[in-house]
């Protein structure tokens, strides 16, 4: 068995089939719809406050991100080495985003609130 044949055999055995892919697509669409509803619930309908809407949108966005990476990019079924190669820089990127946001947005506001 050649390398490519083995890889094909591996993929056929371990990856989801078209039906599961369509189901995942439906779930992703539903999550997007809820995200958009959360936006309008705060913007137009006044049901949610800004913080709650942001939390709902952020959680759903993270869930969509993880679903695509796990099922469409097959990280759930592939070697853990691929997971490690992806997770490390992704975590670093999240750390950079968080640090920049805190330094540039949160701390100046906290400083001016303390000053006044």
């Amino acid at each position, binding site marked *: 068995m050649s390398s490519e044949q083995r*890889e094909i055999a*591996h993929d056929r055995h371990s990856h989801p089939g078209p039906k599961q*892919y369509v189901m*995942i697509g439906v779930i992703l669409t539903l999550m997007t719809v809820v995200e*958009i509803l959360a936006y309008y619930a705060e913007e137009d309908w006044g049901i949610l406050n800004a913080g709650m809407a942001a939390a709902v949108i952020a959680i759903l966005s993270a869930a969509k991100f993880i679903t695509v990476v796990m099922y469409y990019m097959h990280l759930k079924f592939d070697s853990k080495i691929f997971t490690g190669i*992806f997770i490390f820089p992704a975590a670093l990127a999240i750390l950079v985003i968080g640090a920049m946001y805190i330094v540039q947005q949160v701390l100046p506001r906290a400083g001016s609130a303390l000053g006044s």
Partner: protein
Amino acid sequence: MSIVNAADHAANPAHLDTSTGLDNRKMAFWTFIGSECLLFGSLIATYLAYKGRSLVGPLPHAGRTLTGQQAEGILDIPLTSLSTFVLLMSSLGMVLALAAVQRADRKGAITWLFATAGLGLVFLGFQAYEFNHFYHAGLTLQTNLFGSTFFLLTGFHGAHVLVGVIYLGTLGMLAVKNQLGPERSMSVEIAGLYWHFVDVIWIVIFALVYLIK
């Protein structure tokens, strides 16, 4: 490695003839995706760092500039929701294309590869319309910090979508020429990794730039 281990290794379809037992191309591509995470991470961090620091409008959502002027919101949420749905469906098309190639379904592979590339083009059409609308509403790269960081972030993403469309179109042409059988499914899987990565980056951009105020 002993003879018994070597035989086990060879019999296991999950292992390849590489030192890690994994496909080198796939390993290299995941490394590339890791580097892309850092690129987009820095662009998103820059956008968030300068959020709400514009001295003049237009702003993403209606509100006041740093100098206290009232400015209108420029983002069109219904339009971008539609383009987000299009990109999400293109990801579904991509996995269906891969499944078709793996089961030697040439017609299915051609259909889904071109459908995915087509949906990518529709997304780019939405983005071109949005950029043109913003330009005519007075928002350019030089207008304010929002314009600079927004166009840089979404422009880089759009460039990645364009590369993906060309990539998928090339694979589609190979399928038309009957040169994309199951033995080359790894090429489609790697193209899929790129396309899904472009999709997950948009998931983050849509939430952080468009929906969260």
